[in-house]
């Protein structure tokens, strides 16, 4: 990370070509995406009937198209409405110089994120969970219960609902305080779990700049030497003062960055093919504009705000295979479940989603997004454990085998994606004294696990 680079980017954010946000969303992105898809002959290549791609030629073409899109378009700075562009040479240099491995955490809990290729045998890294909102009194027991599963490598969520009983309002000092409080609570929880050296990517409770200022690189906060600073940008191909503040802050603290966004099928990127293309471009631009050490631009389907359906699975497989085959970048992705804890559906969604990411060469995943992230306290450690088991267990699987398994599992939940089961809250499906799942939840977990193992998913039982 360098001051010179961020100054360059800031200069471009003030002097680059002018473009309104409206024109960017409605005209520039869609027209450029259509142009690149056509130029590279990859229009209408989505195969929902085969949701996990195994065509290397296709993904290599998506990579070339995505690289060109990144250079042609750049990123729009929302605050200045100017485009930050990077040249072909600059982008190639950024990719060449990006790390292919990254240590996080310390002591016995130190891990290494490494570059992976499709069907790579090397196990990936699992971060749990996403920033699902959890009440203050449940935060530490929940995180402790998640961290007790040693198969989980890093932590990100959950998010705090309140700070000292007060709602956390965006853009206020409550956020700044919440950043610091989250850091304390996370560290207390992992200490209780016997994993004091676990790494984090933060500050998820408050994704604006105030949370990071309050909790990252401050005494008692997240340590920049072993925890990543988290940048989340709006869709598509956008940066902002918020994101750039965080880059500067990370530089000031001697930290490193995990930068990401979501790409939406049906949104500005258009069809699944457009979303795959934008994801490729976006992943690369996180390294160039936000100086990311690892980045994530997974695809969601706006019809149900998840990504375990056929089109989203296809798009994610193509985008991540394109990147992992053609670069050594450390790429992250997210499986966005919509069903809640204590349901079979969340486990089916997780099986397909995590298996896909594993065989597509993703280095690190963050999840799960239990119940679509909608409900306070609707997250449990057991689905966190499950996503890690599948993600790591499927390392080395063939994409064609994964595809056949996905085809067998998707019909079990595909028609429920828009109106999924809410499931049960942490309190309802876990014993808060023992921090173990209820019998009901454990039985569901074992049943589904056995079922998917019979289909060929390489897991250990129980």
């Amino acid at each position, binding site marked *: 990370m360098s001051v010179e680079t961020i100054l360059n980017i800031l200069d471009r954010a003030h002097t680059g070509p002018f473009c309104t946000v409206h024109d960017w969303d409605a005209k520039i992105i869609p027209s450029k995406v259509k142009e690149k898809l056509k130029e590279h002959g990859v229009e209408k290549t989505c195969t929902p009937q085969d949701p996990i791609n195994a065509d290397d030629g296709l993904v290599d073409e998506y990579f070339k198209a995505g690289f060109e899109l990144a250079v042609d378009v750049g990123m729009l700075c929302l605050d200045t409405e100017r485009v930050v562009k990077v040249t072909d040479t600059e982008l190639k240099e950024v990719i060449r110089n990006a790390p292919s491995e990254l240590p996080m955490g310390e002591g016995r809990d130190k891990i290494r994120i490494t570059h992976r290729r499709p069907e790579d045998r090397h196990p990936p890294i699992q971060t749990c969970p996403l920033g699902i909102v959890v009440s203050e009194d449940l935060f530490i027991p929940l995180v402790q219960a998640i961290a007790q599963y040693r198969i989980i490598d890093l932590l990100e969520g959950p998010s705090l609902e309140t700070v000292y009983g007060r709602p956390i309002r965006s853009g206020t000092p409550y956020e700044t305080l919440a950043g610091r409080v989250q850091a304390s609570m996370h560290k207390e929880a992992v200490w209780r779990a016997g994993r004091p050296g676990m790494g984090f990517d933060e500050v998820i*409770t408050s994704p604006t700049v105030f949370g990071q200022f309050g909790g990252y690189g401050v005494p008692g906060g997240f340590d920049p030497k072993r925890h990543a600073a988290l940048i989340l940008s*709006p869709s598509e191909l956008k940066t902002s003062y918020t994101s750039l503040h965080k880059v500067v802050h990370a530089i000031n603290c001697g930290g490193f960055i995990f930068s990401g966004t979501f790409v939406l099928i049906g949104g500005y990127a258009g*069809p699944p093919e457009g979303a795959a293309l934008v994801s490729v471009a976006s992943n690369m631009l996180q390294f160039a504009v936000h100086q990311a050490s690892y980045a994530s631009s997974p695809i969601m389907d706006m019809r149900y705000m998840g990504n375990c359906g056929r089109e989203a699975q296809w798009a994610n497989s193509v985008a991540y295979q394109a990147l992992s085959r053609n670069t050594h970048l450390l790429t992250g992705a997210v499986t966005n479940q919509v069903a809640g804890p204590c349901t079979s559906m969340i486990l089916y969604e997780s099986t397909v989603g995590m298996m896909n990411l594993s065989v597509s060469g993703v280095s690190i995943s963050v999840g799960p997004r239990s119940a679509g992230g909608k409900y306070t306290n609707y997250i449990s450690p057991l689905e966190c454990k499950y996503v890690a088991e599948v993600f790591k267990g499927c390392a080395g699987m063939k994409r064609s085998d994964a595809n056949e398994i996905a085809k067998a599992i998707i019909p079990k939940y595909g028609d429920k994606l828009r109106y999924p089961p809410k499931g049960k809250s942490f309190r309802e499906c876990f014993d808060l004294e023992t921090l173990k799942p209820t019998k009901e939840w454990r039985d569901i977990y074992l049943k589904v696990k056995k079922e998917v193992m019979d289909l060929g998913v390489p897991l250990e039982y129980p």
Partner: protein
Amino acid sequence: MRLYFFCIARAKNLCWRGAKTKSKVMTMAKRRILDRLTMAIIGGDEISAKETSEECIAAGVDPLEAIKRGAAGGMKVVGEKFRNFEIFLPEVMLAADAMKACMAVLVPKISEERKSETSLGKVVIGTAAGDIHDIGKNLVATMLSVAGFEVYDLGTGVSPKRFVETAEEVKAAVIALSSLLTTSLAYMEDVIKLLKDTNLRNKYYVVVGGGPVTPEWAEKIGADGYGRYAEDGAEICKKLVTEDMPPPLPKCIVEGV
């Protein structure tokens, strides 16, 4: 004499047939203009929508007819195509822009008493304070345009005060709030509090939605409607303005759950 009356009769007949033909030609010409207006909306062509709307006026097309049969027909097609995923958000946004351009020409030509027929009502929409995410809000705004509402999009990070002031200024029927951040949810409640504190609560419906927004939250803060998906938001707004239920509603209308 007989020849004279024959010629008059023949001339009258010819005039009558000519008038009927002329009327047919006028109707066909009008229809063609309206079809071009529909296509301009479907194609998201703002310039063509504006020019064709001006042509409508010049050709004597009733402006309300032009909106209902020309422009609204186009928005209906756009809505259908989006629901079938044949087109996506950008195309819908451009269609909504074209619709606005057409309305800007036609609405001033409509008499005051007929103006209420041009739309289902006015909606002020924005993303709640502290949140810069716009895609969900953009989707709802375009769905509202498709449904026939006049939409005032305030953008992102909108303060409670600005929502209320704009609603007063444009005489809106609905205030629609979107948020993707849990840390912005409190600002949705602030909008309703502000309406109550300024004795305006019974003037505006408040509809909420977005990733972390739930029906329970909507009920808790006293919102009138909650939609899980963008099209649900449009459905709720339609219900609110067409049924006889003044705000605030005793119970929040929930769609999409």
